[in-house]
């Protein structure tokens, strides 16, 4: 499978994946809710080109980190809900640790200046 990367705003793909997983730890959500959550929580700093989210969701589903099922949204429409799998949780833990190490390292380089 070729990793096609549609323009994902300012976010790198790996980071977007991590954010999606982190968001979904709060429970099953549809794609729109994931976008809304990321944008609101980051106080609109992280502006995702919304379409880019969907290839990311599908990719995570194919990797077995998410599962999906059709449900009914808050305004009574058919919507596809994504849920974190056990593998997804483990992956998130790993990613979080990795991200912490990275940002700490970058911080140490950037601070003294």
């Amino acid at each position, binding site marked *: 499978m070729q990793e096609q990367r*549609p323009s994902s705003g300012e976010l790198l793909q790996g980071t977007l994946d991590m954010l999606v997983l982190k968001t979904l730890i709060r429970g099953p959500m*549809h*794609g*729109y809710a994931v976008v809304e959550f990321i944008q609101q929580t980051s106080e609109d700093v992280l502006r995702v*080109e*919304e379409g880019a989210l969907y*290839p990311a969701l599908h990719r995570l589903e194919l*990797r*077995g980190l998410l599962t999906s099922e059709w449900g009914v949204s808050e305004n009574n429409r058919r919507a596809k809900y994504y849920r974190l799998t056990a593998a997804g949780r483990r992956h998130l833990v790993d990613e979080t640790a990795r991200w912490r190490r990275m940002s700490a390292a970058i911080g140490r380089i950037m601070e003294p200046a």
Partner: protein
Amino acid sequence: MTAAWLRLRTAFHRRQWQRDLEDELQFHLEMRQERCQSQGFSAGDAGYAARRQFGNLMLVKEACREMWTLGWIETLWRDVRYGCRQLRLNRSFAVVTATTLALGIAATTTIYSVCDALVWKTLPLPDPDTLITVLGAFPGNPHFWSPASPAGVEDIRKSQTMLASLASWENATANIVDAGGEPLRVDQARVTPNFFDVLGVSPELGRSFEPGDDQPGRDREVVLSDGLWRNRFQADRGIVGKTIRLNDQDYTVVGVMPPRFAFPRASKDLWTPLAFAPEERNSRSTPRVDSAGRMKPGHTLRQAALELNRLGLQLEKLYPQTNTNRRFMAWPVRRYVAGDYAAQFANLLLGAALFVLLIACGNAANLQFARGTARWREVAVRQALGATRWQIVTQLVTESLVLALAGAGLGVVLARYGLRAIRAGIPPELQKYSSGWADLGLNAGVLAFVLAAAVLSGILAGLVPALRSSHANLAESLKEGGHASSSGPGRHRARSVLLAAEIALTMVLLVGAGLMIRGFHNLVRGETAIEPRTLLTLRLELDATEYRTPEKVAEFYRLVLDRTAALPGVQAATAASALPYSRHARFSAFTISGRAAQPGRQPSAQLQVVSADYLRTMHIPLRAGRFLSDRDGPRFPLSAVISEEIARQWWPGEPAPIGRQIRLGMHGTTGPVITIVGVVGGVKASALDRVPRPALYVPYTQFPEQGMDIAIRSAGDPLSLAAPVRLAIKAVDAEQPVTDMMTLERMKQNEVIGLTYTAVLMSIFGAIALVLSCVGVYGMMSYLVSRQTHEIGVRMALGAGRWNVLGMLFRQGSRAGLAGVTSGLLLAFAFARLLASVIWGVSGTDGGTFTAIPLVLVLAAGLAIYIPARRALRIDLLIALRSE
């Protein structure tokens, strides 16, 4: 793993999945739109804003779809479905192309199955690769073998360093008579006690032979074949230890072989120990036994063959009397069982069938070229829409593959009929010699071959046209509106080359077929004087226990001949130890009284023990002296009639050596003196004989033989005599089996059946090739004519005559044809030489064939050019001019 599974699952619900994706994205856009509206946008602006924030919807869908597909498998599937749709749109093209390929695949499949069942099949013996057969050989003739003498085999056993073991056998027949049953003649092998051990097969019931069973007196043991055990002894599991009557003697059954065991021939019914008397064991002059041995590990057949050849040379020096020009050779056991000629015929036919397949591929390619022209616009449009060249080529080749697979399906059906026809043509008396006939059919291996052939021919026929079609000048083809005249000269040339190749291959096939038919005809014409159609023949094999004395044997045959001759409708009844075309011929050395031995010049001839009027009944002409007569009885001087070949060779200055005396046997023999009483014309005793054989006829009354062929000349249909003749023989001895009852004509046909089959199949292949090539020429010509309708119109409007136009078209059409005929002739000449070297009776330089076949081909091609060309001449001028 998960990913693959998820993808596979969606592959089966592709539509549903597409709808879900649409829904999912649509839901997002609607949510966003509502959100924007709630922030004060108008409905239209909100929709626009939502889409802008979303990004490129098409790209997102494409990215998701890409992720969920199975890659090339789905692309292939899409191509296949697209191809099928295209083919449905152009049904006549699809049918013609698939049928063309079906003919080629059917031909190849049929012959492949025959080779598979009869020639290539591994024997049902353990480890057949280490098993070799050891046979008597003649220097310089690798295809001709004979049994070896017992002493010779003993020398091999002692001196061979590469064989771990060696078993020998002698073929024989036996008569089984037991209470109630019809007397039965069975095929017997007399084998050394280690026979089954060397082959590595043990009996299903009981035991095999034990050392010492080959001592005379201890050899009354028998191992039965599964078939005989079931058919004759009702699969009696308690048969081991019981006694059966074999040749009027008691034999103890010691074992029963498993069902698939058939060695040395599929027809073997039973095996008994081979017991030689001491003088037989030490004989070097009687070739009696074939042998098989296991090679020690690490040795090759070639090494063993070299060692055997060296031994042959040594023996020649030691025993020049008996071993001059005698060698030994080693054959793989499969070659021995399948027969040398079977393999050669099979390979030849397989080659011919592959030619047909190649011609079919060429034709299919040509058809696709023509279609490529019609699809010019389609290809151009797809390229304009962004399809890569690779995608277009894959798609076109896939289409060709679909056609080839359809052709394979049809081909398998045709092959089934072909195989049925082939098997139906082999008489049962020949089928029993090879277990392969029973297995002949479309097994898994054959079907795998069909699949491979289909895929290969699909690619072969599709690739070049596809490459050409995809190599389009985009602007040019769109501008031309897909009209045929947009084809460049290049594609034209490719088609011509293909066509020329097809015609060349057809030429080779047809010349091959022609030569085979000529050769076959020459062989089968044989001795027309014998008139084999009105002769009923049968074989009688007396057993030596009941007919112990020569007098008894002679008396039996005298009674049989008298009674059958007296039957209504019988013109004459005669007996011979070996009728022409039978496999019973026996050669004997003889010595001429009063002449000293000359080394290397031992007179010999086919020894024929016959009844008095045999020569007259077979229409063999008397040249001098007299025929044998009934007066040449046991108490009269021994007499013989010789063929003119013997007279010419051994009494060259003497037109009729009547009264000369000879003895049977090698120099130094002390046999009784025989007087020559007559000289007769020569007979080609086998369809394979190019010249008559030297033959020596002696009366059965003086030299009785246990086994004789009976030939009965009938006034009407010989087979109508079958039942009365059987009854007449039964009246003489109720327990005497009668076998091989058939007309002499059939015996003759059986002898050359391999050649018949090869000739007939080659002719069928040649005919298919001819039709395919003509279709190719016709298609090409139709295409040229339709392409030039406008030009022809212009020419004719300007005053060109019909003949001018016709001449122009012929020049165009015949260029490929002439190239094909010329190159084909060269190939055919080489092929003919090969054929003549491989197949006995075929001449490689048959002038008739080499004139007739090219003529036929040129005429057929001319017709295929003329029909479309004539159509061009009938064109209405106005329509032609408007045609563009």
